[in-house]
């Protein structure tokens, strides 16, 4: 077997039992790795109807056939579990040495179930698994936790850690490693519920590839292409450059999605940030693109800086009405240090601000534009203090408690807060949000590419929009299963054929584009079937009433009937019923 070990490691923290579970060649070929294999594993390991914070909810760290090869951006892995934010399928991608060292333990995935009785560190070193006390680092933020672990164990291990937010089971807590984060869906809370502060991996088992010379040549070619114009934006500007683009197109979510333009966008633009605050650029492990732009705030005390992406910038800036760059940078760093998803955190704060403005919440200084309030609220959320305890459950649950018409403007789909794309002026993305199995999710959908193209009218979605949305979703599933960074997508001339070639070189399988199309459809189906198993109904595939009833100032309207037409077309294009039921009962 090439590219794989052919097994995953299953650890039961409650019983102390662990063992290898065989992964057949058939399963691996049908689900590849990454999000695909994660979907298969969760179907097998996750008990139906389980509370996501129950000890029996497994959390899976899943690698892929390309991990450990010289292919650029291949040091990626997926964390998957039933999400405590959505109660639905959640897979969260991340990039770091954890992927490489994790796979070198000798397993294609590591699945952890049960819980320990006291804060612990789980160490996996080849076939040796041990638990060590973590009481002295419980409560510490991510950076000092990681430093402490490195001091204790040396540089050979790679760590995945949670911050105070995960410990307090904040429903959008992240899992952090190498300054990167498995961000969406609250999987940090799943680790926290298991009393696991950190997982360390180290190993010596490398997989072989079928055609070493071919893989090396392909890697060289891909690296060269990764330096070209298709990735220039990420390398030279970073995703923060999206802010002014979106603002100009009335697509920049502002003040809890009440408008699509922010009057102070220029002040916090990527261009200004790059001129005034950027200090360096970096890459994640095994990556030649180098999309990480590190910024420092204005204070002389900020020596660390923070990596800032568009999503964090929009969520902690315009979405909360904040136009102070230092506040935004500090807020992003607070989220990283405490271990929280910046998108959900920012959206939850913005939602709370609107609730306060409408008289639904009585919290002092909780007004749009208050960067200091954002900072203090983030800390309270991470530690579940005061109003933070309510908001730590995300906007859907908070809205249910707050009452009134809060549900109408709580910015989530299936419980997952919307990222930085205004649905009324990006209607392909609106569709992607509504039908996404993770919830409101730009990453698994990719439908914003349709909005940013001549193929569709971003202001008037229709049935053809649905066909395009299926296409981008399949492409995302492919890249997230192989796993390759989506920032590479523009370097491929024929993504499907070229990826089939890469996979064949690594695994020795004779794979073609048609087979990959079939595999991605299976993966999308598997995620949807998991949700159906866990209680999904067609009523979940929608957007908050705000987007369907309120016209966006400056232009932008998405009537419910139009969204429903697109959703029906999407479902039929997927081979499902028009309501979205999947006519497949086994995988």
């Amino acid at each position: 077997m090439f590219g794989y070990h052919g097994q995953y490691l299953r650890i039961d923290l409650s019983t102390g039992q662990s063992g290898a579970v065989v992964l057949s060649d058939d399963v691996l070929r049908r689900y590849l790795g990454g999000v695909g294999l994660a979907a298969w594993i969760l179907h097998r390991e996750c008990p139906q109807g389980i509370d996501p914070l129950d000890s029996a909810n497994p959390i899976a760290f899943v690698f892929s056939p390309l991990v450990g090869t010289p292919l650029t951006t291949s040091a990626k892995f997926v964390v998957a579990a039933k999400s405590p934010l959505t109660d639905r399928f959640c897979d969260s991608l991340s990039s770091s040495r954890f992927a490489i060292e994790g796979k070198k333990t000798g397993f294609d995935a590591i699945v952890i179930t049960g819980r320990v009785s006291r804060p612990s560190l789980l160490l996996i070193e080849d076939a040796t698994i041990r638990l060590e006390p973590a009481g002295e680092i419980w409560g510490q933020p991510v950076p000092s936790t990681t430093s402490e672990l490195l001091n204790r164990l040396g540089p050979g291990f790679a760590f995945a850690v949670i911050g105070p937010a995960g410990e307090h089971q904040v429903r959008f807590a992240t899992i952090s490693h190498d300054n990167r984060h498995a961000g969406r869906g609250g999987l940090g809370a799943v680790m926290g519920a298991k009393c696991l502060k950190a997982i360390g991996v180290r190993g010596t088992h490398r997989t072989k590839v079928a055609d070493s010379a071919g893989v090396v040549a392909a890697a060289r070619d891909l690296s060269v292409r990764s330096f070209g114009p298709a990735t220039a934006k990420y390398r030279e500007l970073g995703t923060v450059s999206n802010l002014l683009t979106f603002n100009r197109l009335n697509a920049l979510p502002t003040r809890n999605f009440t408008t699509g333009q922010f009057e102070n966008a220029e002040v916090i633009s990527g261009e200004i940030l790059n001129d005034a605050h950027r200090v360096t650029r970096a890459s994640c492990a095994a990556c030649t693109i180098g999309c990480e732009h590190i910024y420092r705030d204005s204070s002389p005390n900020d020596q660390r800086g923070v990596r800032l992406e568009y999503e964090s910038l929009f969520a902690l800036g315009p979405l909360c009405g904040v136009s102070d760059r230092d506040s935004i940078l500090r807020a992003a760093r607070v989220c990283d240090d405490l271990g929280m998803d910046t998108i959900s955190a920012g959206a939850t704060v913005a939602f709370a601000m609107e609730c306060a403005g409408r008289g639904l919440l009585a919290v002092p200084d909780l007004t749009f534009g208050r960067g200091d309030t954002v900072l203090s609220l983030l800390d309270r959320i991470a530690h579940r203090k005061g109003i933070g305890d309510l908001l730590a459950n995300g906007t859907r649950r908070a809205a249910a408690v707050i009452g009134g018409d809060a549900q109408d403007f709580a910015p989530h789909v299936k419980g997952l807060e919307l990222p930085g794309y205004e649905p009324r002026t990006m209607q392909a993305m609106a569709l992607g949000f509504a039908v996404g199995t993770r919830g409101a999710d730009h990453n698994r959908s990719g439908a914003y590419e349709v909005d940013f193209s001549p193929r569709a009218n971003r202001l008037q979605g229709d049935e053809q929009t649905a066909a395009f949305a299926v296409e981008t979703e399949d492409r995302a599933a492919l890249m997230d299963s192989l796993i390759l960074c989506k920032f590479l997508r523009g370097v491929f001339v024929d993504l499907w054929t070229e990826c089939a070639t890469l996979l064949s070189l690594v695994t020795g399988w004779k794979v073609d584009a048609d087979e990959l199309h079939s595999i991605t459809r299976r993966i999308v189906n598997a995620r949807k079937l998991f949700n159906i198993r866990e209680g999904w109904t067609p009523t979940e595939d929608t957007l908050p009433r705000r987007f369907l009833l309120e016209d966006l100032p400056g232009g932008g309207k998405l009537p419910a009937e139009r969204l429903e037409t697109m959703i029906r077309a999407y479902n039929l294009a997927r081979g499902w019923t028009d309501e979205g039921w999947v006519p497949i009962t086994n995988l």
Partner: protein
Amino acid sequence: MGIRIVFKCDSRKRNQVVTSTGRVPRVRVEFYGLARLRAGRSDLHIPAQTVGAALSAADTACPDLRIFADDRVAGHYLVSLNGDRFTLDPQIGLKDGDAILVFGADAGG
């Protein structure tokens, strides 16, 4: 991404390229993202009869831009007229006050 899109001209009349006074329309070319970095400026005010003419003029004013050649928009840019639909059609006629928005092709996430 490997497939060339053939885009139909929008509903604006072709060849409606000269104002009623006979003057070539004055339009604004706006640059965002990578286009702004390459252009070295945020916008440009120029006379142009068509989208293609405006982009050619932008290339002349901003040599590092390289957005328009062989009557086509370069693959790593996106162009929108007035922020409405994106377009690849250089023949679209312009009127006074139109804005041609230029973005990097990977304008999303």
